[in-house]
């Protein structure tokens, strides 16, 4: 025999177990980053594929296999956000009109301006914002999850909040003028 058939088989079993165990968390992570539960399902499926293809690199990537998978999820989300930026602006709230959770969101909640402000951020800013305020992660946790230095996370968060605030202020001024 010139293959590690037995070892690889067990290794693959373990990878499948790891990936399936991570699906609910990956789903939440992707939904918070993308602001789109339906799109999050596609992102998780894509992440599963990528993870499977890269499964032999688990030992090289990280000591924590779950974190390895979640980092792939974040990367898939980054690609999706980038691809969305290349398309004409589409408010995420409009995208998910058929989604039950979105449908039940009160129209008066006033999220539209926030949707637009977040959509204007860079992918990396949207990711830290989703992890901070969606997943409720601390800055060290975000750093661990994304592989960034804590200082970088802090500055991204700082700029993201600043950009969101500026965009909201601009909208408010425009609205006041139109009255």
């Amino acid at each position, binding site marked *: 025999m*010139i293959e590690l058939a037995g070892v690889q088989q067990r290794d693959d079993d373990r990878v499948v177990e790891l990936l399936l165990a991570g699906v609910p968390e990956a789903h939440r992570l992707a939904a918070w980053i993308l602001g789109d539960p339906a799109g999050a*399902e596609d992102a998780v499926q894509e992440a599963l594929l990528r993870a499977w293809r890269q499964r032999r690199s688990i030992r090289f990537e990280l000591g924590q296999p779950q974190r390895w998978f979640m980092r792939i999820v974040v990367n898939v989300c980054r690609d999706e956000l980038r691809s969305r930026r290349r398309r004409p602006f589409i408010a995420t709230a409009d995208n998910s009109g058929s989604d039950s959770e979105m449908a039940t969101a009160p129209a008066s909640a006033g999220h539209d301006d926030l949707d637009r402000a977040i959509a204007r951020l860079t992918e990396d800013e949207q990711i830290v914002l989703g992890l901070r305020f969606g997943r409720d992660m601390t800055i060290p946790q975000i750093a661990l999850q994304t592989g960034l230095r804590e200082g970088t996370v802090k500055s991204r968060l700082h700029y993201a909040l600043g950009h969101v605030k500026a965009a909201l202020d601009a909208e408010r001024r425009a609205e006041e003028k139109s009255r």
Partner: protein
Amino acid sequence: MSDPDLESRLQSHYRRFRPDDSTRLLLAAETRLDEIRRQPDAARWRRRALAFGLVAAAVVVAVVAGGIFLGSSRATPAASTTSTTSATVTASPSARVISKADAVAALKAFLGRDPGQVTVNDPTAAAGGQAYQIMGTPDGVFGEARVDVSTGRVISLILTVPATTTVKLTPVQAQAAAAAFFKAHNISIDGLTPTVKLEDHGCCKNYAVEWDRIENGVTFPESVQADVDPSNGTVYSFIEYRAPYGPVASPTIDRQKAIELATTASGLTKPKIEAVQMQVISAPAYAGTGWNGRLVWSVQLSDDSQGYVAAAWVYVDAVTGETMIAGRG
């Protein structure tokens, strides 16, 4: 920048996107992973076929160049004074080259029916010299076959890979089914040692039945392998591989020493021994390295102490103790 109002708005904003149920996604993920895991079967056989083919090609080159055996360089006085085995297999000197049409005809005769639409690729390295690779269509009666260009023999075949988890056959019955298949196709397993293993790929199961040339505890590069459907005994893929080899020197490194050397070379933190065997290696990847034809201890190790399974496969030269990492998983 800290703006409690904005942060509170953001928290409220993101709360809307929390998926309340991942059950549907989980089921879809299970199905997807099952589908992905089915694919390696065919790929594995292709890899084996390619590897065996290239090994055989290298062997033939050695035979032509050296005149007698592969590894004739091993037959130096010091190494060959004591021999662990007298077994040798020589390569066929035949250089006859059959046409692509002949190859398809050979496959048709082997299958006992028309193979349907096929694509025949130019010959590539294979056991005994070269072989045509014949590809079927996805919905056809076979997936891939290789036909030796010199002998016209079908040396490997993949039929449709079944997706079953039903096991109705015992290992003995699976071995008998494979033996009957080889007998019906005049593929000799005489003098070879069988092993049977039920493989579980999650999505599907199969019996891997393999006959190897093992003499005095040494495994030689001569093997006949089949995959058997455990629900009905159908052989759905096989490979016949026979590489020439010559006399082999007696080992000076014992099993325990080999494990020690392999463990050190592996770099694993807490290595566990998966398998140890002595064999004569011959693989294209080692061409030019001086390792082909050597008698080695093949030591497979794993390590799950880090929260994942790492593996290392180490060759230890059974005469000199030199080590080589053959693979990591």
